[in-house]
């Protein structure tokens, strides 16, 4: 197990990249602490799989270095890095039994049979596949196949990091939840550094202690699930995480105050001085309430999703969503919206531009 440092990493799939748009990874500087559970979250094509393949050694980055415990491994092959990776589609060796599949990485490294037997038994017990150890791997269901490929990743004791590349894509929804909690439990038992790549926010937020959000080859924010939810550093994070995502409302700033549709909106703190092309107010639907006075809005759509009610309203050109508990308004009704000040922030060119107020600390 090791601390992993990515230093000034850039990668392009073109041999001769011209501008920043040619780079799949723009500039990554990142430390992963030993034993952490991380998630790499971002939409398809944001560079997360590229980053994963660079860490595992399947790709050599165009620029920058990768360090495992301060040892430079940038040029090392996957085998020499001592890492494990679980792929999107379960990779199993069809002709082998489950037991031989699990033992494969150990036997390739010349581990003695007694140790192999002990480790395979331990891992099988953790993954609850002990009763199918002697079955042929080809005949397993997709979720069991994926468990076996996870098992091959976890079977080596000295592994530096275990990486998961959207491992639950092919798993049935009702088994996804089970495997996800299994993974979390496995992390707590083996304490290996784990990196989990996904575009599914639920998977990322349930698995990880720290979530790294990526967009267009850049890291937008690193934080705990609570950080990402409560104080997104970028409108992308606000919009990407949450259901529905954060309301992003174009606004003007005048004399240190934000004006939305001509009304002043109280913010969490002071606006950080600076210049930008566009300024926006960000507030999550959870912190928008219907009140007697406030921003006037027309109700467009009301959806009762069980736990709460999502009200979509229109203010001038902009749409604002609010989440309320009860007393749903009628469609077409005029309502007044209140934004909770300590959860309302200003974003300049997408990036957070208010100082945290005392209430938010």
């Amino acid at each position, binding site marked *: 197990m090791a601390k992993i440092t990515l230093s000034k990493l850039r990668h392009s799939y073109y041999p001769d990249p011209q501008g920043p748009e040619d780079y799949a990874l723009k500039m990554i500087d990142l430390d992963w602490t030993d034993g952490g559970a991380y998630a790499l979250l971002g939409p398809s094509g944001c560079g997360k799989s590229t980053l994963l*393949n660079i860490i595992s050694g399947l790709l050599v980055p165009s620029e920058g270095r990768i360090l495992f415990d301060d040892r430079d491994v940038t040029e090392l*092959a996957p085998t020499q890095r001592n890492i494990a990776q679980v*792929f999107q589609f379960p990779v199993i*060796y069809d002709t082998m039994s489950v037991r031989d599949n699990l033992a494969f990485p150990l036997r390739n490294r010349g581990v003695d049979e007694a140790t192999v037997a002990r480790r395979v038994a331990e891992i099988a017990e953790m993954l609850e596949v002990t009763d199918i150890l002697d079955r042929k791997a080809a005949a397993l269901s997709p979720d069991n196949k994926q468990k076996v490929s996870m098992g091959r990743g976890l079977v080596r004791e000295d592994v530096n990091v275990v990486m998961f590349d959207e491992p639950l894509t092919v798993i049935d929804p009702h088994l996804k939840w089970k495997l996800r909690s299994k993974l979390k439990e496995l992390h707590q038992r083996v304490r290996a550094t784990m990196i989990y790549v996904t575009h599914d926010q639920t998977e990322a937020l349930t698995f990880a202690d720290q979530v790294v959000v990526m967009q267009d080859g850049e890291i937008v924010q690193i934080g705990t699930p609570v950080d990402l939810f409560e104080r997104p550093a970028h409108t992308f994070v606000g919009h990407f995480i949450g259901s529905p995502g954060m309301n992003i409302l174009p606004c003007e700033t005048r004399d240190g105050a934000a004006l939305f549709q001509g009304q002043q909106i109280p913010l969490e703190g002071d606006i950080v001085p600076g210049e930008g092309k566009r300024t926006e107010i960000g507030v999550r639907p959870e912190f928008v309430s219907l009140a007697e006075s406030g921003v006037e809005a027309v109700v467009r759509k009301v959806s009762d999703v069980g736990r709460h009610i999502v009200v979509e309203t229109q203010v001038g050109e902009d749409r604002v969503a609010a989440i309320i508990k009860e007393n749903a308004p009628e469609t077409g009704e005029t309502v007044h919206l209140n934004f909770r000040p300590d959860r309302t922030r200003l974003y300049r060119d997408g990036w957070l531009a208010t100082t945290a107020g005392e209430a938010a600390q």
Partner: protein
Amino acid sequence: MKTENQRAWFLVLPVLVLVAFNALIPMMTVVNYSVQETFGDNLFFWQGLDWYEQILTSERFHAALGRQFLFTGLILVIEVPLGIAIALSMPRQGFWVPVCLVLMALPMLIPWNVVGAMWNIFTLPDIGLLGYFLNHTLGINYDMTQDPLAAWITIVTMDVWHWTSLVVLLAYAGLVSIPDAYYQAAKIDGASNWAVFRFIQLPKMKTVLTIAILLRFMDSFNIYTEPFVLTGGGPGNSTTLLSIDLVKMALGQFDLGPAAAMSLIYFAITLGVSWLFYTLMTKDDLN
């Protein structure tokens, strides 16, 4: 409720008629010949299973059958591993892929009798490119019209040249269908090249290889045109394979009854071996 409807039979009728005229009726004629004796003039005498007994106990048939199995065995032993090896060394992407594929397909596009004629001229001791080179440049005594071993080497080489491509193309199709993740996982698992071949590539090629072996077995077991044009079954009877022997018997000696019995035995062997092989290869997939 399911309604019973027999109209579907009309839809398969054209196929049934076609199969009847191009396969079943000619085959029944052969069956007819195989149990009778004829001297022409549409005169037939009932013989029962005599011809079958005669063929099955004849040394000539045993010898031809032995040569046939030897030929087919050599073909499979050479072409299957060679085809896999070539497929493995072909590029998976880029400019050279279509070039390789076209080059591989070329020999298969040449008509069979042309292949025989080509190799015949190629190996002539005094004027053929290969024949002249072996005899006059290297000083090796090579003449397939005189030496049975030379004749065998030539027909086997010719078939390898003509048909290895089939195994290559099928094996290649199997190889390119393996997702990259398998190779990446194997790298991470520390698998050697041999292990990658044994546990990933070979299992994934199994289905196409089964088809390849089956096709090569049937084609080489029934081979006629190329050895007929090349050696005519000689020198002596040394390259008289089953089909050549059959044609000699039917058209050369006009022994229609024994020839018919031999055709059916020949057919039964081809069918039996193919069935057995296919059943053994797919047995695991069923359960």
